[in-house]
């Protein structure tokens, strides 16, 4: 599934781009693919937001930030949380993945690669610091629900890996 399935009205994009993920501030909500719908009806903005993980504490903040962003241009917003279809890492835009890498978070592999890596069977995840693939999993659970903790055996730096979710 592609992020293109999201129904977002053209004229709302500029404002949506000002709202970022509070935990990965280089990613906008559009990069992350959590906005499933954004439409304007009778002068009010209706947004459907989907969580990355069920307990993701960033969702409440993102909801508030969206309201604030549209309030700045004099619009009221109604944010609705939707669970289905469930968010997947496929919805992170290519640009988003690039920004994530530059920020120091290895972007998600495909499903097979991800499984191999998390089971410790393969060394595929590239260190965001030096680019080596000589890396290993330290913990399946990292600083936030969506990330795992890795360490590079070449440059010895720890880094986050964004877990594949499908």
């Amino acid at each position, binding site marked *: 599934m592609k992020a293109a399935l999201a129904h977002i009205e053209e004229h709302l994009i500029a404002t949506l781009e000002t709202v970022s993920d509070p935990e990965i501030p280089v990613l906008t909500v559009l990069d992350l693919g959590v906005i499933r719908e954004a439409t304007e009806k009778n002068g009010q903005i209706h947004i459907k937001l989907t969580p990355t993980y069920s307990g*993701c504490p960033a969702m409440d903040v993102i909801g508030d930030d969206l309201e604030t962003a549209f309030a700045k241009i004099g619009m009221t917003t109604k944010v609705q949380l939707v669970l289905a279809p469930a968010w997947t890492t496929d919805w992170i835009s290519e640009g988003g993945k690039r920004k994530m890498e530059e920020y120091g978070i290895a972007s998600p592999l495909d499903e097979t690669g991800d499984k191999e890596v998390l089971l410790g069977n393969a060394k595929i995840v590239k260190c965001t610091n030096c680019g080596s693939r000589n890396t290993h999993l330290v913990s399946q*659970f990292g600083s936030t629900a969506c990330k795992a903790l890795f360490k590079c055996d070449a440059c010895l730096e720890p880094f986050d890996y964004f877990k594949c979710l499908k």
Partner: protein
Amino acid sequence: MKKNVYQYILSIADNSLILGQRLGELCGHGPNLETDIALTNISLDLLGQTRSYFQYAALLAGDDKTEDDIAFIRIEREYRSILLVEQPNTHFGYVIARQFLFDVYHLLFMEKLQFSKDETLSAIAKKGIKEVSYHERFSSDWVKRLGDGTEVSKLKMQEAINDLWRYTDEMFHVSASDKAMISEGIGVDVVALKERYYAKVTEVLSDAMLEVPEGKYFQKGGKEGIHTEHMGYILSDLQYMQRSYPNMKW
């Protein structure tokens, strides 16, 4: 019908709520940083799932009920969680054994719940499966690491599995209201999960060089609201703010 669904949601969600609360107790107290973060991450997933369930239950209940009312303003007898999840964090072996015995069940359960005729329950399950499979992988790995570890870790892991074994059978009990939900295609027929559950648990335990307990005496009651002595203590923590400052908002 609505009332049955409401009760059914509680019987699923209370497991996640109480286990999430138990794991939350370990925040800052895990044996090392990675495990501490992992256990609280799992706690967060479980509480996130709980919120989705309770928001839906609140909607069904009407009367301006909120997810917080359901989570905090009930008496012990009204919580439908199984006895396993309320057992204390005695030592790390118990934390892992409890998690493992629950995760194997939880994943099997979610895999069926995603086909529920109830759209919301199905959506919560589809989302949750991804999270729960990570939990199961984590707890199974630790069972193996401790079981096949040192003499002491093996002993402690075995002790925890033996002690908690008596709470496993309750997962497969079907209450009268569950029955109605199953026949309507909303609920999960847990009896049908039993064989796969014990097969999976046995597989991991033998990989871990641990014995499968032979105990045939099982405890039950949680699903009917009759809990062990540990439950009151969790609830006094969980409900403290709402009891002390009724209707307070975060």
